[in-house]
């Protein structure tokens, strides 16, 4: 197992190098360092001196990949790519183009992101599994049909609608929660109630249908028929047999998503004023802050790789027949 994990980590390293290179190429294909400087400095009358100073302070006055004027290895190391992207491989995120410590920012913003993402994930998973099990329990009845239709309706509506409708209903009409905002401590529950609810509802339709399909597939198998023939209660058949055996595909989606919870939600955080990593990334993209963009893309890729490895490990726990090769 350790060899397998090490091998996967090695593959992950090469993937990260590739992601790093791709991010760099894509970013600088669209933006020149001059563009970045102009946008970062902002305001009227941006002088060329100010642009040159901005670039030189941040090392964007160097060539992108090859420094023809440098000697020996400096030809490759005294470049924007090397100085900006290689330290990432040691998780040295450095400073944003505005001069702020990215590692410090990530540390500060991870908590609000998790505060939103974790309950949304756990409660959402619970709600989706419970709802799909309910539909499977009542399969073939009018309740099942109504439930499936309900799922289709939920799937057909944009996530943005849930946010706006949620704010209209809960914050404006009923006045139960604030429109947006965030505070530390237990009081954060007031601020997170609505975004978590919206997060759950917006994933309920698609995931419930998916899980329902998985459960129904299991429900048609021989071992389930055998269990029923033995006179087992439907509740036991569902929870002890069907749910357990349908866990494998569920694990694929859920365990690999766990590390990504740290990355926050791009849209929800913006709408609900939660100062997490999602809004941090969006702000960086809008500001063309390459340092933050590459750091967040790198972090996201690294977490995704970790998530996939965790998912692989979780297979062996869920299904003893699976072994690492």
């Amino acid at each position, binding site marked *: 197992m350790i060899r397998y994990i090490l091998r996967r980590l090695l593959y992950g390293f090469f993937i990260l190098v590739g992601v790093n290179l791709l991010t760099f190429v894509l970013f600088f294909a669209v933006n020149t360092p001059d563009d970045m400087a102009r946008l*970062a*400095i902002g305001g009227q009358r941006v002088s060329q*001196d100010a642009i040159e100073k901005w670039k030189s302070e941040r090392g964007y006055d160097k060539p992108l990949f090859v420094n023809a004027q440098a000697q020996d290895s400096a030809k490759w190391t005294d470049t924007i790519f090397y100085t900006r992207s290689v330290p990432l491989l040691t998780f040295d995120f450095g400073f944003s183009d505005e001069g702020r410590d990215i590692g410090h920012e990530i540390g500060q913003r991870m908590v609000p992101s998790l505060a939103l993402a974790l309950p949304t994930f756990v409660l959402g998973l619970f709600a989706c599994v419970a709802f799909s099990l*309910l539909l499977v329990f*009542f399969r073939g009845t009018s309740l099942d049909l109504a439930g499936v239709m309900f799922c289709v309706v939920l799937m057909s509506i944009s996530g943005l609608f849930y946010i706006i409708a949620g704010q209209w209903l809960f914050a404006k009409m009923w006045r139960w929660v604030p429109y947006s905002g965030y505070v530390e401590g237990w009081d954060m529950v007031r601020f997170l109630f609505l975004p978590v609810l919206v997060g759950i509802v917006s994933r309920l339709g698609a995931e419930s249908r998916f899980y329902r399909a998985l459960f129904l597939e299991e429900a048609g198998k021989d071992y389930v028929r055998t269990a029923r023939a033995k006179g087992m209660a439907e509740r036991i058949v569902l929870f002890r047999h069907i749910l357990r055996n349908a866990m494998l595909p569920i694990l694929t989606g859920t365990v690999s998503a766990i590390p990504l919870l740290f990355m926050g939600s791009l849209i929800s955080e913006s709408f609900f004023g939660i100062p997490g990593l999602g809004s941090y990334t969006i702000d960086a993209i809008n500001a063309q802050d390459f340092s933050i963009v590459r750091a967040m893309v790198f972090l996201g890729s690294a977490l995704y790789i970790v998530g996939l490895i965790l998912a692989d490990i979780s297979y062996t726990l869920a299904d003893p027949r699976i072994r690492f090769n």
Partner: protein
Amino acid sequence: MVRFLAMLVALACLTACSPHPVNSPYDPEALAQNTLFTAFTQRSPKHLDPARSYSSDETPFTYSIYEPPYAYDYLRRPYVLKPKTAVEVVTPRYYDAQGNVLAEDAPGEQVAVSVYDIRIKPGIRFQPHPSLALDGEGKPRYWPLKEGELDGKYGMADFEHTGTRELVADDYVYAWKRLASPRVASPIFGVFAEHVVDMRDFGERLKRHVRESGLPADAWLDLRSFDFEGVQAMDDHTLRIKVIGKYPQFKYWLAMTFSAPIPWEAERFYSQPGMAEHDLSLNTWPVGTGPYMLSESWVNRRHVLTRNPYFRGEPYPCKGEPRDEADGLLADCGKPMPFVDRVEFILEKESVPLMGKFLQGYYDIPQIERGEYGVAMRVAAGDSSEKAALYNERGILLRSATEAQYFYLGFNWLDPVVGDVGSEERREKNRKLRQAISIAFDWEQFVSIFQDGEAQASHGPVPPGVPGYEPLPQGRNPVVYDLVDGRVTRRDLDQARRLLSEAGYPDGRDAKTGRPLILNYDSAGGMGSSAMLDWMRRQLASINVQLEIRATDYNRFQDKMRQGSAQMFMWGWLADYPDAENFLFLLYGPNGKVKHGGENASNYENPEFDRLFEKMRFLDDGPEKNALIKEMVGIVQQDAPWMFGYIPKSGGAYQQWVGNAKPSQMVRDTLQYYRIDPALRAQKVKEWNTPRWGALWWLAGLLALLAWAVARLTRRRARATALAAPTEERP
């Protein structure tokens, strides 16, 4: 399920008993305090260093923290300068090239140097700041910092000790020197280098020193040791600024934070190792003498200004426009400012929560520095009686004003089709083409559709509120508008078609080749399919000319403008100061973007216009200057390098408990004038935000019904058998 419902009900009862609204985003007591709540919508201010700050979203902070010598009177219109830290708004003394004193009305050409001797009020003190903290021996407490002393310090509140000292003229000198420093690279250096004696050379000397001294890039460059002839301290409270020639507009620059003082100790403090890594700099933690100081700063989340305990308390103005008294804007005449103790700026990226919270009373003003929300609410109130009734019921004050800014549609002077290129005949034809297009574009319709009537179509490059502006009908653009029965009306399309034909495009086709005339509009955003672009296409289609949209992102658009490869484009300008010079310089030849990298984006060049501009810039406000402005406006109306587009209105939206509110895009130090009534706010917010718990019962009922249905179905399924019960056979 029953237990869960019981818990929900108990929770609802508990919260319902709370004396504070449960949807409040603040601490329970916050609304009863003398705090003004407002929002910022995009991101935190990038530059709070007065030498670098040049964006309007930074001004609520910079103009509340820093104090330039002058400021604009808050209430009077047209705008009038008043002293801020200066004792008075001074009249410069003029000298000729031989150093002889000239009369005040000496012709500008004779003036070699204008000298401004500005007296600074004594007793003004800087806000409390660690850079000014001294130990028992009178040595700086936080300089030099020892290793580890900066650990865990990310804001000014993390420093235990602070200090203050009196503002002296040398602080202004230091700030002016920073504008020329290569370490700062101020955006205004290029402008000031043209006008302030020795400034360009001083900048070069600093550059040379930095290059030759081998000083590390992050080491402090002590500017006190460099002589600068242009700006000097004559004594502790007298600042002398020498301006090249006569430049009457210079006084306005003294009302901008570029000329605000900086204590040298602050720059030395922030240049210490580790400060930049902890995000501690003048850009993030400013040091000023103004009514407020930055006491909390959480980037892209929240910023808090609190009252500067050492602020002297400037008196509230007693004069204003005639309607100001009726609006209650003179009630605080003479009272010391600021009135509000604390101002909280909270990030709201989306307009739905921002407006929602404003209507619930959780924001006192939606945004300080921008007027869009006020304009949008005025439009909404005009469109919907329901909205108008709601705003009326909530007592929201919606005030508007036309500001010194505009949006224009420019033609590139270097373009062979619409510009001033080729033979005399070709250039004349191109001029007629521009005039034809100017008639075809119905800007009144544009204002009605895209600005909801909250703007006015412009007739020239000088907007209202600026001396030299001529109201209608005198100021009409005679190329585009007729005067019919005393009413200004847009010329009909037949005249546009005739001009088009004279330009060599009869019925929109090239007279020589027969090809249709296709013009290009270079758009700075979108994919070329927005309603506004469609509207533009329709305007040109009305004279049978086709318009192609070349959509690009803003970076590429700026590249095109710098290279002069755009044909038609739209751009705007917000005045630095309320003087016609600040608008007409956008058409001054030596300011051309392509040739000189200036702000003349259409690269317009007309020797006569340039000559008049050079003459006009020396003149003080008055009839002679107005006559020159009129002449220059007439030239550009004929040449039509721009369609003059529209002048948007600025609007303010204020809660009923906000006092002394008057919208303005020119006056930037507005925070100190606002007054709030926290008791009224707390009362109204409670009144408007009583939770409607009745819905909870409906929800609980729905859940109970669902639970019952599920339980019933479950029971039925449990009792069901595979086969139907056998029926009794009758004998």
